[in-house]
């Protein structure tokens, strides 16, 4: 049975009221009620019957970040992969496809080890009943930590297949080889057995042990190539299902009453205008007010008639005072990196540079809003969710319903973008509470306004740097403090004898969370401008200045050299008036070097980025074209926070409510983007979803300086801020 067929079978439930019949007050399905007959949720694996399974064990996660969050009962029986008697391979992965392409690259990893064509691999992703526990799809962890597990599991399966054939033929395993789904005798390739034939009539279950040697990367034929994305056809035809596209008999669509501000509490909701309307259901329960209907627009229209009174939320600080507020409310924090002696560095400096850098709150603004659909059958709960953390969602929903986590199953259809914003699952909790209250399956899909309100923004942040140059123009002092962004990407990688990097946080009036390369966008913006302004003061070309301060064997040196060559960069004393900028960074084990060219309109303050070149060293690239898509995506998305995106707010009130007030990058903003992978067949694979975004603030700021002599210390670099900086420079 294919996974999709199985899902269709399992969730076709005639026991539920049909959409047309259920209009009155439906009988609530209380947890504790009888479970409906039909397919049970573990029937899929039971139905799988024969085959070869390679299991997961908690210990295998020892190296994976995120262990210890969430479900402590993660020693489970779930398999990484199964080889069926028809020869098909099913991979079970707790990771989810957000657009980053792992539906393809993980399948490539498995197909490579088993020497199978890519289309022999079926991916089952983000199903918490069938897939081994996983912390979540974030932090560019998939390729670094998850793919190696699948690779080892695949090598284990290959070892089992060879062993089975060896027993059948009574030959030593070393005399056998695998190719294209068959085990054969090396000395007599016509003597062979298909994987399916070997798996037939057996049920072999092995716990993953890293014994069998994975294939030598030098012999890879599929890893390192760029087959067409496996989700591409489904996505261009409308066949790809997202959470909002799932339909269940009897389901209701909810619209949630949103408070006017964070910190505001509901005093009274006047629901009289909507109670009793045909087809409209109203839920008011512990501060959650929702209107539900059989079509989402009907629910939305009804919600507009609800009047409600809230306590005022906090009114301070606003977007002007936020930076002082963050610094004022911050504690000592902690030292993330240090070396030498700051006092000695100060004494060695002939000039000290003190500068603060700022960035505004930024929204995730994925095109697909947070969506969840919850169905409760007795004590069993099924959740479809647009989430980056299916297993976290499972825990959150279980807690909200007061059920053991094992009663909750989360399924993850395609997710329409995440960028860190779908790490929390409030929408699933809302849907679960409403499903319980109404006794019907309930979909919660946030509106765009909801999305801007409930988002966990990239934090507004401040970086303060005190750095110094000695009489030879070398950096001898680096005293760095980051407020609220986090320490990722904060420690510098230059040769500086006396340095310290500190991270601390003040109180944020708005909820914040991980946003593509969390912390690193802020930290790289600050560090790479501070380096640049010292280069300018020293009168040294900024590429040359960086090379002077990088160790001879620093991996980023090669990235910078490659990027400069691709760009056609010629050194010049800054500002050269050419509008060229450079920035370097590291994230998720990957190194990046960016060069950019900008044009600045001195009348309007508008910055047009004309060209971005990025060289990236990410170790072995599993799917080089997929990696380059991520780099292009990072660069394009990064234009937004660099030049325009800023969440407006006053206290807990989010004033940005629409795309009309929040300028995502558009086609007219698009520069010519050139990407290059440095040494893409060498070294362990590193992260690819985030690194190329981190330099976008700094490379544009440095290019603006090169064009105009004006420095921009505040993200986003809006036309107003550019004009202000220009006026200061000219004054």
């Amino acid at each position, binding site marked *: 049975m294919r996974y999709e067929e199985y899902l269709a079978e399992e969730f076709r439930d005639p026991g539920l009221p049909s959409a047309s019949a259920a209009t009155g007050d439906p009988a609530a399905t209380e947890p504790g009620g009888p479970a409906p007959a039909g397919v049970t949720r573990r029937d899929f694996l039971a139905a799988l019957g024969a085959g070869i399974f390679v299991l997961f064990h908690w210990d295998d996660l020892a190296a994976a970040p995120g262990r210890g969050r969430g479900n402590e009962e993660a020693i489970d029986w779930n398999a990484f992969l199964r080889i069926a008697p028809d020869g098909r391979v099913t991979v079970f992965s707790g990771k989810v496809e957000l657009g980053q392409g792992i539906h393809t690259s993980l399948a490539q990893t498995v197909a490579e080890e088993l020497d199978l064509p890519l289309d022999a691999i079926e991916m089952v992703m983000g199903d918490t009943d069938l897939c081994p526990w996983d912390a979540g799809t974030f932090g560019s962890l998939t390729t670094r930590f998850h793919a190696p597990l699948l690779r080892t599991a695949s090598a284990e399966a290959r070892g089992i297949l060879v062993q089975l054939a060896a027993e059948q033929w009574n030959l030593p395993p070393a005399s056998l080889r695998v190719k294209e789904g068959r085990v054969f005798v090396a000395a007599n390739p016509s003597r062979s057995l298909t994987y399916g034939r070997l798996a037939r009539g057996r049920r072999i279950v092995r716990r993953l042990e890293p014994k069998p040697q994975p294939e030598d990367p030098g012999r890879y034929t599929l890893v390192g190539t760029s087959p067409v994305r496996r989700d591409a056809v489904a*996505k*261009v035809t409308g066949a790809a299902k997202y959470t909002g*596209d799932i339909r269940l008999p009897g389901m209701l669509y909810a619209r949630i009453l949103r408070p006017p501000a964070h910190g505001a509490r509901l005093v009274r909701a006047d629901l009289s205008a909507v109670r009793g309307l045909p087809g409209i259901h109203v839920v008011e329960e512990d501060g959650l007010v929702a209107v539900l209907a059989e079509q989402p627009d009907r629910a939305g229209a009804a919600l507009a008639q609800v009047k409600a009174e809230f306590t005022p939320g906090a009114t301070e600080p606003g977007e002007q005072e936020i930076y002082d507020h963050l610094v004022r409310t911050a504690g000592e924090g902690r030292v993330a990196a240090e070396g030498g002696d700051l006092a000695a560095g100060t004494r060695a400096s002939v000039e000290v540079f003190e500068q603060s850098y700022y960035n505004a709150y930024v929204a995730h603004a994925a095109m697909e809003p947070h969506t969840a659909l919850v169905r409760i059958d007795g004590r069993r709960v099924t959740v479809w969710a647009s989430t980056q953390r299916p297993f976290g969602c499972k825990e959150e929903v279980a807690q909200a319903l007061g059920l053991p986590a094992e009663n909750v199953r989360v399924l993850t259809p395609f997710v329409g973008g995440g*960028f860190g914003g779908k790490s929390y699952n409030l929408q699933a909790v809302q849907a679960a509470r409403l499903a319980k209250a109404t006794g019907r399956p309930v979909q919660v899909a946030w509106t765009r306004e909801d999305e801007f309100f409930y988002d966990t923004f990239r934090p507004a942040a401040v970086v303060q740097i005190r750095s110094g140059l000695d009489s030879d123009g070398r950096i001898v002092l680096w005293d760095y403090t980051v407020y609220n962004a986090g320490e990722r990407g904060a420690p510098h990688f230059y040769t500086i004898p006396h340095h310290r990097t500190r991270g601390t946080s003040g109180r944020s009036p708005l909820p914040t969370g991980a946003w593509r390369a969390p912390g690193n966008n802020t930290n790289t913006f600050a560090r790479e401008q501070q380096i640049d302004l010292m280069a300018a003061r020293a009168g040294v070309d900024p590429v040359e200045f960086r090379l002077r301060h990088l160790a001879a064997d620093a991996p980023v040196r090669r990235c910078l050299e490659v990027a400069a060559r691709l760009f056609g960069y010629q050194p010049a004393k800054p500002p050269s008036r050419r509008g060229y900028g450079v920035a370097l960074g590291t994230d998720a084990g990957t190194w990046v070097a960016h060069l950019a060219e900008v044009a600045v309109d001195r009348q309007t303050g508008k910055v047009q980025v004309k060209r971005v070149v990025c060289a990236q060293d990410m170790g072995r690239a599993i799917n080089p074209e997929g990696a380059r898509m991520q780099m292009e995506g990072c660069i394009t998305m990064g234009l937004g926070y660099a030049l325009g995106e800023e969440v407006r707010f006053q206290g807990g009130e989010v004033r940005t409510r629409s795309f009309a007030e929040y300028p995502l*990058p558009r086609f007219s903003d*698009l520069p010519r983007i050139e990407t290059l992978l440095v040494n893409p067949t060498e070294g362990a694979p590193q992260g690819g979803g985030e690194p190329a975004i981190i330099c976008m603030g700094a490379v544009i700021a440095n290019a603006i300086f090169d064009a105009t002599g004006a420095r921009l210390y505040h993200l986003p670099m809006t036309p107003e801020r550019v004009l202000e900086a220009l006026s200061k420079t000219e004054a």
Partner: protein
Amino acid sequence: MAQTTRFILNGKPVAVETEGARPLLWVLRGDLEHTGTKYGCGEGICGTCTVLIEGEAQRACVVPVADVAGKRVTTIEGLSQGGTLHPVQQAFVEHGAIQCGYCTPGMVLTAVALLERNPNPSEAQIRSALEANLCRCGTHQRVVAAVRAAARKLRAAS
């Protein structure tokens, strides 16, 4: 008040019993179970809900269903013919002009409408036609390349 609205959806006549003021988007996704058309903003800004009405790219979230009475509506589900992808779809696949895929139906249909009225667009014209379609993943460069390639293919075929 509920009324009957008849129109041609992907080449087939349909009739829906519903209030004429309801947005076409929700009638497509709900009443007609065509979920390929996506919600993105509900105010005609982002372009994810783009459909073709009489061949013109329109925002289904702000078009009352009564407005399409008697008209031809094409959604992403209706673009491929007998299992063969439209050249624009094929070009999106080949150029990797897709990431999360949520904006893709709107992008593809906007490009199809562009090539219908201008078979040989310049890069500036492609960008301008797609300017009001938002994509958060940043597929823009590949989308432009895909539309150029599709235009070449369509011209060669005609």
